[in-house]
């Protein structure tokens, strides 16, 4: 995916997330599309490029939430790091891998957010924790579809040339 399309996707996903998803689906269970984008960056881009665009995504996100820029960047880098680590160490080309490689970074992101907030009350923490799991699963399911969309975009924009793929 070209940089231009990626930036368009960040804007589009931000708008979808803040209007359609969070206005009409309970926000605690709605999928986190922006985290899916960061996971995609970590899995498909070089380290420097991925990190740079994670910062950019974090910056755009910070203008659509109550959290400061540095906090959002921190949460985004955590997502990026976990996704990067998984993609470098446990790569297998199957559905379970894709599900887990989206779910684990998103889970790490949300869990870190919860810890960062320091609710100081175990019951409140556990209630949020339950929603973190639900939100993570919904993100991973939607994430698989988003990855397919990106794959399709790559084929359409000839980033992946199907003719050049030779079966061994």
């Amino acid at each position, binding site marked *: 995916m070209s940089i231009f399309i990626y930036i368009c996707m960040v*804007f589009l996903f*931000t*708008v*979808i*997330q*803040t*209007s*359609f998803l*969070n*206005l*009409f689906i*309970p*926000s*605690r*269970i*709605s999928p*986190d599309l*922006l985290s899916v984008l960061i996971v995609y960056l970590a899995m498909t881009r070089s*380290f420097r490029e991925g*990190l740079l665009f994670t910062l950019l995504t974090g*910056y*755009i*996100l*910070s*203008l*659509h*939430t*109550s*959290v*400061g*820029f*540095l*906090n959002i*960047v*921190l949460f985004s*880098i*955590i997502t*990026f*790091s976990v996704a*990067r*680590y998984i993609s*470098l*160490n446990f790569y297998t080309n199957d559905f379970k891998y894709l599900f887990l490689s989206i779910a684990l970074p998103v889970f790490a992101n*949300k869990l870190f*957010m*919860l810890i*960062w*907030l320091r*609710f100081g*009350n175990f019951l*409140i923490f556990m*209630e*949020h924790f339950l*929603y973190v799991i639900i*939100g993570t699963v919904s993100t991973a399911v939607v994430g698989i579809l988003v990855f397919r969309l990106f794959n399709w975009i790559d084929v359409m924009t000839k980033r992946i040339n199907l003719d050049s793929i030779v079966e061994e």
Partner: protein
Amino acid sequence: MRNRILGKKYKEIIILLVVILVIITVNAGHRVEHKLRWYDKAIVLITAPVQYVFTSVIKGTVRLVEDYFFLVNVKEDNQYIIRENAVLKNRIHQLTESEYENSRLKKLLLLRERLAIPMISAEVVSKDSSSIFKTIRINKGENNGIKISMPVINYDGVVGQIIRVFGDYSDVLLITDPNSDIDAMVQEDRARGVIEGLAKNECRLKYLERLDDVRKGDVILTSGLEKRFPKGIIIGQVQDVRKKKFGITQEVIIKPSVDFNRIEEVFVVVISQ
């Protein structure tokens, strides 16, 4: 070769750890950023109008789909009647919608008269991008005289306060956001505390003395002491009182009077800064 790949991997991990540590050090404690630069405004200039259009289109579509579902379970020979019925239902739906809107606006008007302070009405355009933090974007901004820290209310009570202002839009930090804190008091007991959001449709009243007699159902109002919110606006009702075996304070859980899932219109209270 393998050593080179491993070395590269470790290098990446070290760089990421250093970046994370630097951010944690620089940014100890969470806070809300207020000051906006021209490029921040440029980004919102792109997203906010699209959010507005998206929200309006989706609201319209939801209404249409709701109308369509009225027609799903009917027989073919009743097509004509059902079509007529649908048209009429649609009309009733529109009228009911107008009635609701009318009633909402009436309440807003009453509130404006009761408080006798200048207020700017606005519509909700979008919600926070994160599932834990709670902000909304409204369709009035700097060009309409809105400034940072202005209180936002509706006919049910306190909604939040302005944290960011763009040309024609502004962001409201809801009272349910963990970054929000408002000085409040218990109506019956006059005991004072600070309302903090719990990232769901509940808040917590902090710093309330252990001996203060607070009970389930007590009404919580703005105290007016911090000079942000006018005194006496309803925040919510006490839902639960938790007293530990030790300590000098008690924890009180508040159910906000505003239903944040259904919020459509708000009032920004114009106060002199």
